[in-house]
């Protein structure tokens, strides 16, 4: 299992566009991917669930990847978050 934290710097937080990017990226991997904010957890492949986290600038996201390609998935997601959120 690979896990990392990321603090959101985008003032809009996880709105539709970044949620869409996360979901699209997560679908490229076979590992199970979850994104959590506090006690709320969302399946990384699900756009509506990600938007439902209502994560904003300054919030900390915990991304967990579990499966065969977990290391690659975690790397890819970290790069994506840093560039877009």
């Amino acid at each position, binding site marked *: 299992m690979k896990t990392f934290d990321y603090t959101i*710097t985008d*003032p809009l937080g996880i*709105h539709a*566009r970044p949620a*869409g990017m996360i979901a699209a990226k997560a679908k490229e991997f076979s590992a199970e991917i979850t994104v959590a904010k506090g006690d709320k957890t969302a399946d990384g492949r*699900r*756009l*509506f669930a990600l938007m439902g986290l*209502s994560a904003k600038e300054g919030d900390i996201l915990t991304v967990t990847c579990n499966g065969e390609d977990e290391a690659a998935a975690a790397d890819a997601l970290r790069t994506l978050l840093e560039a877009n959120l």
Partner: protein
Amino acid sequence: MEDKMITLRGKPVMEGIAIGILRFLEAGEPAAEDGDPYIGSAEAMKQRFYEIREAVAAECEVLAERARVEVGQSEAEIFATHRLMVLDGDLEDAVIAGIDAGKGLADAIREAGEGLAAMLAAMEDEYLRARAADAKDVCARLIAALRGERTGVSRLDVPTVLAAVDVTPAELLQSDRTQLMGFFTADGATGSHTAILARSLALPSAVAVGELPDRSLEGETVIVDGFTGEVIVAPDTRTLALYCEKQAAARAERQLEETFRGLPNRTQDGYEVQVVCNIGRGEEAASVLQNDGGGVGLFRSEFLYLESPDFPSEETQYRVYRRLLEDMGGRPVVIRTMDVGADKQVGYFGIGREENPALGYRSIRICMDRPEILCTQLRALYRASVFGKLSILIPMIVSPWELCWVRERAQEVRDELRAEGIAFDPDVKLGIMIETPAAAAISDLLAKDADFFSIGTNDLTQYALAVDRQNPRIERFYDSHHPAILRMIATVVENAHREGKRVSVCGELARDTSLTPFLLAVGVDGLSVSPPYVLRLRRAIRECDRSRVEIGEFLKK
């Protein structure tokens, strides 16, 4: 026949005359039905769901590509997001659960959409709440596909004019443009995304007509006059003939204007003036270039504030300004700092109700209490300045001390950037709007401290003539040709030139070709108009001979 004719009055969006068959665009929300016609075995319905899901996702992909080419990246992203929503697992789960609970397919999809929309609508964030409409829109598309209908009006058999409460940019893009002549809407605004798209597609259109004609009139002939905002349903023979002539004349005019593409904005007597554009969004850069504009004379930065749930960050603003400067490829770009207040209210500013908002707490006056708003914007502007030729324009300056205050903030921002080792263009000019009689009267003093002037004739007319632009009852007193206004313009130009400063006109007056000879004769250096007016204005400039203009006739002295 004759007595059926109905005339509606709206606001013109794009010039031209559209004549076609009236067709109503249904609102996107699917109605609950008595008995679902798509009841089959659970297995068959699930399979059907996956089929239409694929088809709609593919349709979204096509739309995204079309939007990217015709409008821009941000529009394309809306459809890319819709595609992901269509394919989303939560939606899928809800639909499958609905089918397993014994519902018909259409009901299962509609209820799944409503569930997701309700989840989003309950959120605190204003932006995410607005996405509830997307969730419903996506499900409406799925149901339309299920019924074998295409959403929007992608297939039209006859020349058509669309009518709707409001039209989305998506619906315009989806329509068959070989047959779509124009459109009109009950609601809507001339600055909306849809309006911008209509202008870039050159679709004659009108918004805010108030009430739509009766549904029974679908199929009648309808005329949209994009010059006046008038919509005429079921015109009598004489009216129709008149508008056919107008349409032919407008087309001929447009063709003639095209012959002025690429020519200098030079009068017969050799005076050259700059013709640039007024825009309200970064995406309009394409339209500036498409219409042969020389740059951006007024970028209204308000949309950044109006469309954001909170104050836009430095980074967000920086990206927009940088993109615009890059898109304009070295052509001059004048960006006006935020002019919120008066008729443009933003909730999170917390301005509250005012008796006279036009004379109230607006633009620079707000910044004086909250300098961080201006400083954030100035930082973003200076950082972006290295990517093109930027000038900064400050609105609502009525006294020299206000300009000094802004200059001090600008100096602080530049010092900060220098200390942080961040590059900026040291030659960025700082100019002011001349939009109050006070500023015009002391333009000799202001010209010493400002690098340039931009005359905003709309506010100047409203303030000088004491006529509220928003009040239709006193519309006839709003006369921008009033000698009081023209005398002020002449004085402002004279005072600016005495200090060696440039003056441009960026209000609606700038595109009024009956005044072009006057403006050129008094020595205006630049005219800034909406992109579609560039070529027409160039024609008027090239036909003008300044030595033959009787300035006194305009000034009534």
